């Protein structure tokens, strides 16, 4: 036989590659922190006359006890203990720029809706990266250099917080390596009742990707933005209560007369900027955020092998 129609001979009728109608997201840390009570929201700089918010810390409501005083004696004044933390809000922005040809041939990725969704996720994850970069700096530490994290380290951290009179609920932000070591330790050695409630699907939907569950009353989140310590010998996550980390943001003022921008949730500005002569369209997102350490004793760093 001759003249069979084979796929190899249909070069003019077929494509080298066909694009799947679904896509895979490349690996990245997409953990966004929820409005957890352990994170202190210092406020919005909108109309505040400053990009910096000062959070006062005051020693009242039982900070100093009454002193036994003799009948008729004059009571001495108690000094008022106070301190403060400041958090400065800074601009965070990102831009993607696509040519007309790219948008024309786009199969559902290079378009405004996709970039707008990315702006929301990226804005939330940016806050996560700021908070994760603060948990390594508490003066109180548990764990040992070069030794894997254990459940005992986690308990030591909770005990240190309770000794320091920190009120729960606590939040733990650990590197996945640290959480993996603790989970393995639990699996190997746990006997008796351990109060660990793994994250259910419903909890993940509310608290986001990265929420691992609640362990002994502390909500555990993992993030790859947790920094290294000791010249990368270790990872330094942390457990903290309310007051350890303060954060602030700014509400967008959108007075763009061209109408080429939109404000998402009041906090993210997403704009489209066209460069006609180059046939390019930029999709730019902005968020205004800041985070800072608050009361040092409200947190404990967990420094364990990377």
């Amino acid at each position, binding site marked *: 036989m001759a003249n069979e129609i084979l796929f190899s001979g249909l070069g003019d009728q077929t494509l080298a590659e066909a694009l799947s109608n679904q896509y895979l997201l490349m690996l990245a840390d997409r953990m966004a922190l929820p409005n957890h009570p352990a994170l202190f929201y210092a406020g919005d700089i909108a109309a505040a006359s400053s990009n910096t918010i000062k959070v006062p810390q005051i020693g009242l409501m039982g900070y100093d006890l009454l002193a036994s005083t003799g009948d008729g004696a004059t009571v001495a004044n108690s000094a008022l203990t106070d301190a403060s933390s400041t958090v400065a809000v800074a601009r965070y922005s990102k831009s993607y720029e696509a040519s007309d040809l790219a948008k024309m041939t786009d199969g559902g990725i290079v378009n405004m809706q996709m970039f707008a969704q990315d702006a929301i996720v990226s804005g939330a994850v940016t806050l996560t990266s700021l908070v994760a970069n603060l948990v390594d700096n508490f*003066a109180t*530490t548990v764990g040992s*250099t070069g030794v894997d994290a254990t459940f*005992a380290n986690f308990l030591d951290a909770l005990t240190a917080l309770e000794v320091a009179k920190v009120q729960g609920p606590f939040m733990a932000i650990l590197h996945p390596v640290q959480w993996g070591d603790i989970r393995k330790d639990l699996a190997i050695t746990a006997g008796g009742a351990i109060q660990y409630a793994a994250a259910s699907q419903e909890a993940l939907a509310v608290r986001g990707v990265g929420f691992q569950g609640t362990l002994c009353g502390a909500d555990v989140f993992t993030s790859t933005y947790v920094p290294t*310590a000791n010249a990368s010998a270790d990872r330094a996550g942390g457990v903290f209560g309310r007051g350890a980390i303060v954060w602030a943001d700014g509400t967008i003022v959108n007075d763009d007369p061209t109408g080429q921008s939109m404000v998402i949730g009041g906090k993210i500005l997403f704009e489209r900027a066209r460069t006609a002569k180059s046939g390019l369209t930029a999709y730019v997102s902005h968020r205004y955020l800041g985070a800072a350490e608050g009361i040092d004793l409200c947190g404990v760093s967990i420094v364990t092998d990377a």
Partner: protein
Amino acid sequence: MPPKKTSPGFVADASAPSTFTSSAEGAAGVSVLPNMGAAPGGVPLTRVEACGPFILKAHPARWTVMGGKVIPQLGRIALMPGLNSISKIGDRINASEARAASADRGWKVIPFGHIPPAHMQPGQEPSYLYSPEGRPDVTLSIYTRCYPGSERLDCDEARYIEFCEHLVSSGLIDPPALWVLEQLAEKLHRESDGLADKAREHSVYKSASEKAIAARDVVDALIEERRRTVTPSRGASVQVDL
């Protein structure tokens, strides 16, 4: 926000073009190596995540044991605008408020150039920070090793310990107080006892237990040495009027 990650690529091969003639009658020319995205024999870049510069700092209560030595467990001020009141104007980073806030909490900032003379690179400004070749978006400590084509990071322990010892011997930071060592010893005793118990039942904990016991012994020996020289505080007797 850490700088955006660049795609891993290759460092171009550094071979110089050479002149040649195409044939006896041909014109002279130079060899051309078109940029095909990967130079033959080029070294792949490290694939570690992008990370910005930072300032190291030491706290009197934070010490650890590494390589048989008690060294400060350094913290860092990540130089990210918006973090701890750090701001950026053009290329200039203003970290004055972050430094002041750290100092208020008892931290001692370590200047970039405060490294042992033997660790200084000839012809370069002394600094404990560096960027791997081809990755300007990555800033690491000079005691952190990264590898081509890999995300792996590890610590050059010997040189890092030298750096930490230099911080103390140069007088920038004080050696650990006796109470700090005692606190560290308590922590290590608890940890080593726990790991030793686990190692008896599960061999996977054996090496961690040995490491923790070795660290504990180092601190115990240092405390013993210190107690021979420490002078207790003096005071006056207290009388209570009953």
